[in-house]
């Protein structure tokens, strides 16, 4: 039923995969949003998912930490493995899974609480800090890693919503980092930001990849080209082509990829 269009460039080198998706199908009710997608996510690299609106890249991203569970009519089949374990097995604790795989959303969504509380919430519910001092150091450390600490160090008690859009998004990144995940999923994190704020976050991702594996959904091909090592192109719910970013952008194998990156479809 689904004809195979997936092609992989065999030039990734020997980077081990932290997550692998095998034959993943996603249905919203009767409508199929993702058709038979298989993709490996290499560790400590940035993987970009690109494609036109409605192609299913966000849906696919949300499969990795089972955020699709919150949508009633959504059904996922296939295998997604994280460190060799199938995350859709019934015995898997979704709460624990999401503490290993963090997420940053399209629209910055800080809690309507103070900056400190925003970052401290994750460690607190997971019991990561034994004492108040420890919690404080986790918060400071996370804010530093998100490149936000210098800007907010003197107003940690102000509401997170009082920050600018770019700062809010970095606060959300700090909040995700504070739980110490291995993978961070980013769903178009810069789509609501101006170019300067975008550049700051892109630089931040560059430094973050030393410690974390990042999967980013973006509708900006330039961004994918700038930040990612691996790119996967989605179209109409199918994974058309995936592989080394440079190869995809300079020498795509599939015609659809060629058309998309040259601006003829999308």
């Amino acid at each position, binding site marked *: 039923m689904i004809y195979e269009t997936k092609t992989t460039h065999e030039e990734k080198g020997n980077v081990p995969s932290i997550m692998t998706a095998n034959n993943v199908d996603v249905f919203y009710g009767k409508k199929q949003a993702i058709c038979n997608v298989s993709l490996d996510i290499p560790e400590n690299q940035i993987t970009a998912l690109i494609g036109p609106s409605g192609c299913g890249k966000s849906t696919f991203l949300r499969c990795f930490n089972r955020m699709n569970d919150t949508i009633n009519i959504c059904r996922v089949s296939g295998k997604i493995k994280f460190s060799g374990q199938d995350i859709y097995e019934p015995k898997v604790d979704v709460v624990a899974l999401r*503490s290993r795989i*963090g997420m940053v959303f399209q629209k910055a*969504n800080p809690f309507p609480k103070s900056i400190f509380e925003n970052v401290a919430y994750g460690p607190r519910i997971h019991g990561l800090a034994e004492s108040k001092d420890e919690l404080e150091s986790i918060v400071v450390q996370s804010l530093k890693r998100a490149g936000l600490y210098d800007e907010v160090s003197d107003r940690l008690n102000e509401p997170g919503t009082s920050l600018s859009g770019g700062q809010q998004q970095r606060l959300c990144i700090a909040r995700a980092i504070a739980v110490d995940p291995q993978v961070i999923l980013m769903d178009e994190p810069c789509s609501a930001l101006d170019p300067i704020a975008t550049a700051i976050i892109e630089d931040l991702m560059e430094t973050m990849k030393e410690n974390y594996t990042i999967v980013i959904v973006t509708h900006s091909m330039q961004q994918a080209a700038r930040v990612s090592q691996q790119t996967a192109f989605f179209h109409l719910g199918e994974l058309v082509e995936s592989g080394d970013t440079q190869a995809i952008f300079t020498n795509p194998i599939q015609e659809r990829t060629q058309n998309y990156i040259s601006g003829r479809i999308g």
Partner: protein
Amino acid sequence: MPNYILNTSRQMAKRHGREKRFKWYGRIAIFISIAFLIFMFSAIVFRGASAFQQTKISLDINFSEAIIDPTSSRDPEILKRANYKPVVLESLSNVIPGITDRRDRNRVYKLLSAGAVFDLGEQVASNPKLLGKSKSVWLLASSEVDLFMKGKIDSNISEDLRRLKDKDIEWIEILKSQGKIKKTFNTTLFGKGDSREPEMAGILGAAIGSFFSLLVCFLIAFPLGILTAVYLEEFAKKNFLTDFIEVNINNLAAVPSIVFGLLGLSIFLNFFNLPRSTPLVGGIVLALMTLPTIIIASRSILRSIPQSIRDAALGLGASKTQTTFHHVVPLAMPGMLTGTILGMARALGETAPLLMIGMVAFIVDIPKGVTDVATSLPVQIFLWADSPEKGFVERTSAAIIVLLVFLILMNLCAVYLRKRLERRW
């Protein structure tokens, strides 16, 4: 360049005209509603304002021990129930000359409220040292005298058509000329329970009854309603059963309140044998009636909390319960409280269900708990409006004013909470 941008065409004129007309329809509608509101409020205030005053007559009472407590028992019960009529009459005839025959004595005694002697009894019982002494006391005047003092009895109409005769009016004028009759703030209205005599009737009993009913109502409806809303909105799967429940909740909100009264009568009184006419049962019935309102309001508030907040918490690995109670419910709380207060305000004004469970009885005592027999403010208004005594007319309006003040206070409270607790995101 096309000229229709700057010049008004016929079509543009029509569009402007339509807009103008629509504005005027709106203004007229608002004007009419406000006019009705002002008309209603001013009618109530006009009628009820005089009830906040009551007439009292000053008498120099000689607390003669021989008449009040001939056995010198000093027993408070005896002092309370002693016959004070002779001492009152004696002091009245000192003030008003020419009272000799029995009929006159009885008439002049009627200038005072029937409760005046009880008042004296209470005073003496609480302070027995008064015995044997003489003291000037302000005593409650009868309702007819009160109405006359407030100018509500026209002395020009035929004597046969009024209960206050010319002679009574003459006596009142004598008291007036000596400064022994005056209008004071009506403490009875706010400090006493119901009575058959208008001048002795108060709304405190009904207000306390309403308070206890609302307390029970709040304690049941608030937690139940909010937990139901949170469960249905955040946890329950959307399926046939939850749809069915939702439809039924919406229907319940539209059920006439008297049906809830019948339910209370047949289940809580007849089946569970809970005490009749009590705020406990009243509160339960009002809670059942308020629940759908609270659930519907709370659900719509929960629905308005942005999904991004839930995503943020879930994405961090918070469980469904943590997400709901750490983030969603606190954000929804101001709205939920507002919905609850508005529901309670409706319950405060509700009469019909309380009639069915017997809170319509004539109750003089002020309830001390939720299991004491009581009535409620709107029921008290209903009872007074039904009374033939003329003195109750103004008191009915006064009770309505008090009820309205409570309702306005509750609504203001809701507005304040909404403004105060609201957090932006």
